């Protein structure tokens, strides 16, 4: 039976009770796997279950999530997957993300307030309408920066929702502060805010090598 690969953790990671996941260890690291039904396409439900499973792993220690839909033919291939990364880099990331989680915050600003903030005279062409949208987005980003600065030290703007007055951010917060951060976000004035998380730190992984592979930079 082939396997879904979900993430890389420490070999000492505590799995939650009744988890359908298991660990395939390699020295002090392990890859989190689950059984996969052969020749079946990935469904929305399985992708959501992958995320839910990773979230459930967070209390047991840091988790480096793998891309959704990563599969291996057997456990030997799963071990090879860990070896494909540089082990010291994985260990460094596990240390850096220990006790931290990603929290998604959606901020919805009032449209009238936004338009008042970017008011300009003589707006009658489509191009000017486009400029107003750009101005609203700049205003929204600045508002989000100011509102979320006291809440989290690190945040990343995620893709546009399509609504110029909606901002979606990923925050990196201590796992044991998630409740406090949720409360602080809920108490923000002048905006409707909702949170999703804690999630593994998808947006705070950077496995690009910090040093070039050779003196030529290749």
């Amino acid at each position, binding site marked *: 039976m082939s396997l879904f690969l979900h993430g890389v953790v420490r070999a000492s990671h505590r799995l939650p009770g009744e988890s359908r996941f298991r660990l395939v260890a390699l020295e002090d690291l392990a890859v989190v796997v689950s059984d996969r039904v052969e020749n079946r396409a990935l469904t929305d439900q399985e992708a*959501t279950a992958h*995320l839910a499973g990773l979230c459930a792993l967070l209390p047991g220690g840091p988790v480096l*999530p793998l891309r959704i839909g990563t*599969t*291996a033919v057997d456990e030997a291939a799963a071990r090879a997957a860990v070896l494909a990364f540089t082990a010291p880099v994985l260990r460094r990331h596990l240390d850096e993300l220990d*006790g931290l989680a990603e929290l998604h915050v959606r901020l919805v600003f009032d449209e009238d307030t936004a*338009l008042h903030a970017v008011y300009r005279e003589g*707006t009658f062409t489509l191009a000017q309408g486009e400029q107003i949208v750009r101005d609203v987005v700049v205003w929204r980003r600045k508002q989000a920066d100011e509102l979320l600065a006291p809440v989290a030290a690190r945040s990343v703007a995620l893709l546009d929702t399509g609504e110029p007055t909606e901002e979606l951010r990923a925050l990196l917060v201590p796992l044991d502060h998630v409740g406090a951060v949720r409360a602080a976000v809920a108490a923000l004035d002048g905006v409707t805010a909702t949170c999703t998380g804690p999630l593994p730190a998808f947006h705070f992984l950077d*496995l690009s090598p910090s040093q070039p592979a050779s003196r030529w930079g290749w």
Partner: protein
Amino acid sequence: MIVTAPAIPNSGGLADVLNVLLDKGLVIDASVRVSLIGIEILAIDIKVVIASVDTYIRYLEAMQRLEATRRGMIAPPPVPQGITGTYGLLAPAVVAPAMVNPAPLQVEEHQQ
């Protein structure tokens, strides 16, 4: 570090964030017998839209009403047009408040 974690997000919330996490996470080189299988992302792609012409028009009209308000003029409420109910590009007719200016007093000078 082992911490007491808050509640795991429910699957409804996770489905909402799925579209921003689909292309995130570590990717393993396929040469190690690991592969990536796709997901039917059509429904998810649809959610990723950019601000459209409808938005430009809606904001233009809102801005025109703001301008009219600031100038102390009364703009009539827009009349929805077209299939999507947008209001159209033409500026609505602005109705200025009725003002009565007294006619200048004309003094006839009698030439003597």
